């Protein structure tokens, strides 16, 4: 436990807010962008390329005074399905959140098919889960299958 605590100290301890831990390092900036943290005014601290036993290099994000909504948690699940999310209140873990892929992903992900209508009209994308265990989704419009591994975020 003590060892864990010393690692946690590499990133400032949080009073109230959300901690997203065990993010694969190469997914960190995607998660930041997905949650719109670039435009967030409260304190956000993150660690990058931290040592991890579970994954080769991990990242961690601590967001002050913001508690992720279920739909935001689902978004994180798309990019980093093995991440751990906890809500902190008064320096204590108030809630651990189980990540689960959503039934639908609307607006955040780009369709990989350049001939898809969503890449040719000003409109929202929409993907429907066809096999959550395998992380497979289908574009609601062009009906092409896409895995969460292949998904690209909309810019």
């Amino acid at each position, binding site marked *: 436990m003590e060892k864990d605590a010393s690692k946690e100290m590499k990133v400032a301890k949080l009073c109230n807010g959300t901690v997203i831990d065990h993010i694969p390092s190469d997914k960190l900036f995607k998660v930041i962008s997905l949650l719109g943290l670039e435009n967030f005014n409260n304190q956000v601290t993150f660690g990058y390329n931290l040592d991890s036993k579970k994954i080769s290099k991990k990242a961690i994000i601590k967001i002050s005074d913001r508690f992720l909504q279920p739909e935001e948690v689902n978004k994180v699940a798309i990019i980093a399905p093995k991440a751990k999310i906890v809500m902190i209140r008064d320096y204590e873990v108030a809630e651990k959140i189980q990540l689960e892929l959503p039934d639908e992903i609307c607006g955040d992900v780009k369709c990989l098919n350049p001939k898809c209508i*969503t890449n040719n009209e000003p409109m929202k994308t929409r993907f429907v889960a066809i096999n959550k265990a395998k992380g497979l989704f289908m574009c609601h419009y062009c009906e092409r299958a896409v895995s969460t591994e292949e998904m690209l975020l909309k810019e």
Partner: protein
Amino acid sequence: MASEKSLVSISQYGKDKILSILDRAAQFEQNPNQKILDGKVVATLFFEPSTRTRLSFETAANRLGARVIGFSDASTSSTTKGETLKDTITIVANYADVIVMRHFIEGAARYASEISKVPIINAGDGANQHPTQTLLDLYSIRKTQGKLDNLKVAMVGDLKYGRTVHSLINALSHFNPTFKFISPKVLELPNAYKLFCDEKGIKYEETSELNEDAIADADILYMTRVQKERFTDLFEYEKVKNIYVLTNKLLEGTKDNLRILHPLPRVGEIADEVDQNPKAYYFQQAQNGLYARQAVICDLLGV
């Protein structure tokens, strides 16, 4: 407010719906000239030219007494001025009672159906869906075999990109088919459709040889064209374009009830000599499209 009734993909239709559309189509074959759509306006919006499909839909509408508006080429529409599909569909939905649309962009019909207050009929959206083609294929199969259930269907050619093949597999899945998929390795059926067959308990075999043995027990031989426009590497296309040519000799050992279907246009995959073979059915098949489309238009208009 989007219309709840549109035909975007054949997967929308279950067995009963398919059969009711085919029954209605059979009535139109008996009597194609019925002025039951007098006063209705059918719009045909062809953002991608397709003379055969457009004329079939327009004939269907005309024979039912409807009036037809629209365009046959996007270059004559305001799309060239940069108008969005959303705006075009919204405007046309104010004029017409039903919109038939073909688009080179995949998913265009689905999107249009979410915008339009009148029903949309998808007449082809890129490599994605073309449901009335599937309905005319089913109509042709039932007409020539007397049934849809328990048939042996051999599909030949481009099974990778051929949307008609994919949709027909989906639609026939309601009728306990046995498939034989005949294609070169580079154009074999995508895994998603094999998984679909597995999940539905549908029996199938795959082979890369089109020979007498491969089609000996088939009831339907569904030929397709290797589509040049789908290849990014034309060298790959040249290697496979003439890989299968159906001849009268190949048909000698086939069953008497076998009929040859092809969504057309064909290029070299069916020899001209086969046109006179009583087993050739592809031209009648195209004609059946008229009745199937009459049935779909009436169904969506609630007539």
